[in-house]
C-alpha cells in the first residue's frame, strides 16, 4: 500500500493518450454514421410487403443484437485479414449498432400517425416521396436523442478495437503503462478522459430529449 503515485508519468502519457483519443473519436463518429444509415435501411426493409424479406432481416438483426461485439470484431478481423483493422472496427461497430438502431427507427416510424400514411395515399404520392417528404422527417425527430445516446455508448465500447490492433486511447494507455510500469496512472487517466468526454455529452442529450418532448 506504499505506492507513490507518479504524476509525471500521467503528464507524459497525456499527449500520447490524446493521439489515441483522435482514433477513438474517428471510430465513434464514422461508426455511428454507418449505424444510422444502415439502421434506417434495415428498419425500412423490415416494413417490406413480403415476408421473404422481413423474416430474414429480422432474424439477422436479432442475431447480431444478441451476440457479443468483441467476438464479432475478433471474428471479422480473423476472417477478413487483408482489410485494415480500423476499417473492420468501424464496419463491425456500425453493423452492431445498426441492429440496435433499427429497432429505434422502427419505433420512430410506428409513432408516425396512421393518418399521415393515409394522407400520402390520398395525395397519391409515390412511395419515395411518402418516405422522403412525410414519414422520415417525423420519424427521425423521434430517433435523434436515441441516436445520441447510442453514440455515447459506442464511444465507451471503442476500446474493444484495441483487441484487433487499432491503437486507440486504451491501447496507448496499456502500452505506455507496460513500458514504464505505470498502469495505475495511465488507466486512471484513460478512464477520466472517457468520463470528461461522455458526461457533458450525455447531459446535452438529456436536454435535447426534453426539448423534443420525450
Amino acid at each position: 500500500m506504499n505506492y507513490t503515485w507518479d504524476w509525471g508519468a500521467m503528464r507524459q502519457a497525456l499527449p500520447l493518450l490524446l493521439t489515441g483519443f483522435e482514433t477513438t473519436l474517428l471510430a465513434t463518429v464514422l461508426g455511428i454514421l454507418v449505424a444510422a444509415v444502415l439502421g434506417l435501411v434495415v428498419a425500412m426493409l423490415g416494413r417490406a410487403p413480403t415476408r421473404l424479406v422481413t423474416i430474414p432481416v429480422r432474424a439477422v438483426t436479432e442475431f447480431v443484437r444478441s451476440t457479443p461485439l468483441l467476438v464479432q470484431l475478433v471474428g471479422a478481423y480473423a476472417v477478413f485479414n487483408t482489410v485494415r483493422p480500423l476499417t473492420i472496427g468501424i464496419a463491425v461497430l456500425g453493423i452492431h449498432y445498426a441492429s440496435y438502431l433499427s429497432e429505434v427507427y422502427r419505433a420512430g416510424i410506428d409513432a408516425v400517425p396512421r393518418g399521415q400514411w393515409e394522407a400520402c395515399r390520398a395525395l397519391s404520392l409515390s412511395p419515395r416521396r411518402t418516405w422522403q417528404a412525410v414519414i422520415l422527417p417525423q420519424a427521425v425527430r423521434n430517433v435523434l436523442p436515441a441516436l445520441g445516446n447510442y453514440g455515447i455508448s459506442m464511444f465507451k465500447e471503442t476500446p474493444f478495437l484495441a483487441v484487433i490492433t487499432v491503437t486507440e486511447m486504451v491501447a496507448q494507455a496499456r502500452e505506455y503503462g507496460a513500458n514504464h510500469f505505470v498502469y495505475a496512472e495511465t488507466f486512471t487517466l484513460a478512464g477520466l478522459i472517457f468520463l470528461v468526454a461522455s458526461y457533458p455529452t450525455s447531459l446535452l442529450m438529456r436536454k435535447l430529449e426534453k426539448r423534443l418532448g420525450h
Partner: protein
Amino acid sequence: MGDFYSYFFGHLPDVWSGLAVTLEATVLGSAVALTLSFVFGFMANSRPVLVRGASRVIVEFFRGTSLYVQLFWLFYAFPLLFGYQLSPLFCGVLAFGMNYGAYGSEVVRGALNAVPRAQWEAAVALNMTPFQRMRRVILPQAWVQMIPPFTNLLIQLVKCTPLLWLIQAADLTTVVQQMRDRTGETTWAYLTLLVLYFVLAYALTLLMNALERHAAVRLGRRPAARSLLRSRSAEGARRSETAGGAR
C-alpha cells in the same frame, strides 16, 4: 468444417468448462448488479441531498468511465496500488456488477417513480410503515416494470463476458479460440461461438419472460401465453432507453 466440428465434439468437456466460467461470471455479475441497482436506486429516491448526491456521483462515475477501462484497471492497476492480485473472474464480476449496477439503478429509480402517486398515498392512509408500504404495495408493482429493462441489461452483461478472455480467465471465448488455433478453421470457429452466445442470450430472455409473467400474475394481471416466447424487441429496448436515461 469437418475438422473443427470433430475437434469440437471430441472436446466437449472443455466447452462445458468454458461455458461454466461464462455462466458463473454472468450469474455472479448480475447478482452484484441487481444488489447495487437497488442500493443506488433507493438512494437516488431518498430525501437527504447528501445521499442522493452520493448515488448520482457514483452512478455517473461507473457509467461514464468505460467498462473496459474499469476491468483493466482492476486487473492491471489494482495489484500495483495495493500489492494484491485479484483473480480474473473476481475482476470480471466486480466490473460487470458495478457497471450494470449503475445502469440498473436508473431502472429501479424510474420504476419506483412510475408507481402512481395514489398508491403511495393509499398506503400512507392505511397507516402502513414505510417498510410495509414498499414491500406490499410499491415494489410488487415497480418490479413488473423493472423486468424488461433488466432483461436488456442482463443480455448486455452476457455480451460483455468475452472480455474475460482478455484478462486470462478461461471462458467460452477462450476455449473456442484455442480450438480455432488447433484446427485453423477460423470461420466455423467464430460462427459456432456466436451461435453459442446467441443460444445463451435467448435462453436467458425466455427465463426473464417467465419471471415477468410470474410477477404480472402476482398482481392479478394475465398476460397472453404468447408473451413467453417473445424476444426482447422494440418495446423492451425502448423502455430501457427511457428508463436508462443517458447511456
